[in-house]
């Protein structure tokens, strides 16, 4: 029986019916990279006095895979005993619920809501991060993700950031593509 089994395996092997080959694991790597950027922005940007207490709220306007990555990052952050602030990731269907957000990420597909989001966030010190060409320069976003040589980078509009009374660290400014 054993010899038969080996013979069958050998036949299989010789006839080229190999074990299942490698499969590409389809994953949205860009969503994770953007989530890491957003997490870093919480460390390198200073919010005004009144916004430094309680949970740090990050809103995601509309649908985006970045939301689940941010939720993962929040989970990891919040379970750390050394966590300075808890992260609270909020899915926002429309701009009515963005006022409490410290940071609002507007994915490419929701870019048409940027103007309303800018208006709605006025006076709330909300950092607005977008994901479509030109939105930091002309659209009112503070930070905008761009791609340069296949790499995710970010544009920073310092005057928009100042309008929101936010202070950006030198390191972040040095790494950014300044657009104003």
């Amino acid at each position, binding site marked *: 029986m054993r010899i038969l089994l080996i*013979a069958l395996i050998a036949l299989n092997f010789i006839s080229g019916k190999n074990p299942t080959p490698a499969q590409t*694991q389809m994953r949205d790597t860009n969503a994770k990279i953007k989530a*890491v950027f957003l997490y870093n922005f919480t460390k390198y940007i200073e919010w005004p006095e009144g916004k430094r207490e309680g949970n740090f709220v990050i809103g995601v306007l509309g649908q985006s895979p970045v939301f689940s990555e941010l939720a993962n990052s929040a989970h990891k952050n919040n379970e750390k005993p050394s966590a300075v602030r808890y992260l609270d990731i909020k899915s926002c269907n429309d701009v009515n619920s963005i006022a409490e957000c410290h940071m609002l990420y507007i994915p490419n597909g929701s870019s048409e809501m940027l103007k309303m989001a800018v208006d709605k966030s006025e006076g709330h010190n909300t950092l607005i991060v977008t994901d479509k060409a030109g939105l930091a320069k002309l659209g009112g976003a503070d930070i905008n993700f761009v791609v340069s040589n296949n790499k995710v980078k970010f544009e920073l509009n310092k005057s928009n950031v100042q309008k929101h009374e936010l202070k950006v660290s030198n390191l972040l400014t040095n790494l950014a593509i300044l657009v104003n």
Partner: protein
Amino acid sequence: MYSKGNVIWFLLIALLLSTSTIWAQSVQNREARGLEIKARNYMANKEYDLARPILDGIATDTAHVNSCEYWYLRGFLYKELYKRDETNNGASDFLSKAFDYYEKSMTLDADGSHKDGNIKGIKTIAVLSNNAAVTSLYKENCTENDCKNALANFDLYIKAMRVYETPEAELTKKRVEFKLALGAIYNQIYDAHTKKHSEHNVSIWDNITSTYKGVLVLDSKNSSANYCLGSAYYNRAVHIIMHEMGYDVDMITLSDIQDKCINLFKEALPYLNKAHVQDAINPPAIEGLAGIYFSLNEIDKSNYYKELFGKLNDNTTEEPLKIVEDHRTQQDWYNWEN
């Protein structure tokens, strides 16, 4: 200078010495031959354990060192010992020893008297070593060590096949098949390891890439190897980003990781492209290309392959190749770049 008497004495002593040496050698050879006959009798009764120390012990005797008969017997003995005791031991060196002894017998076999026996023995070694390679490779919970054993046994199989003049093209085909199977097993080990430890195992990953590169050296147009090698680079980059990179890495590290992964994605690209060109309707290669371009932020190209993948998957009636051709004509960039 020397007296006549002294010379005679010198010659007599020299003669005595040489005679005694020859006599001693002949006694030794006679004893060795006797031992060989004893070993042969044991072997006839399949008492291989009794024959083995005898044949091993007389290997350096002048009577045997150049005897094709002796090396044939020793090859036969180790082959039979392997069959009896070692078929479950992937690391056994009995088969390779048997092969070496048969090969030595062949080189000493000037009149061809043992040719048939040696060839028959080597043919059996080919079958046994192939079985040993396959058994190691398809073992449940196959380890890196099992792969190493499989590789050693497969190399022996190829050596044995070469002895009886198997056409090189046929051997190349078998080596390609073996390496593809080996690469797939390395992939399984790598996946199991990363699932368990959530970390990259450098040595297994290196084995994956070098195995598939080995296939491409033998057959540069091998679509499976191109696909698997491309997938290995792609999956490595995905693993770095999705599992090894923490959410709290700083900006500088994030930048370095992005650079490293972009390089890996770019390494993957030509292999998956070739796999697609070689087999235009290979859905995994198409899906892989969609994934790579997406990770490289070349979204138009990613969408091209994603749509093509969808069309091929949804299709039930149309000729797949026609779908690929039609899809191709819709995209200018594809024609510019290919």
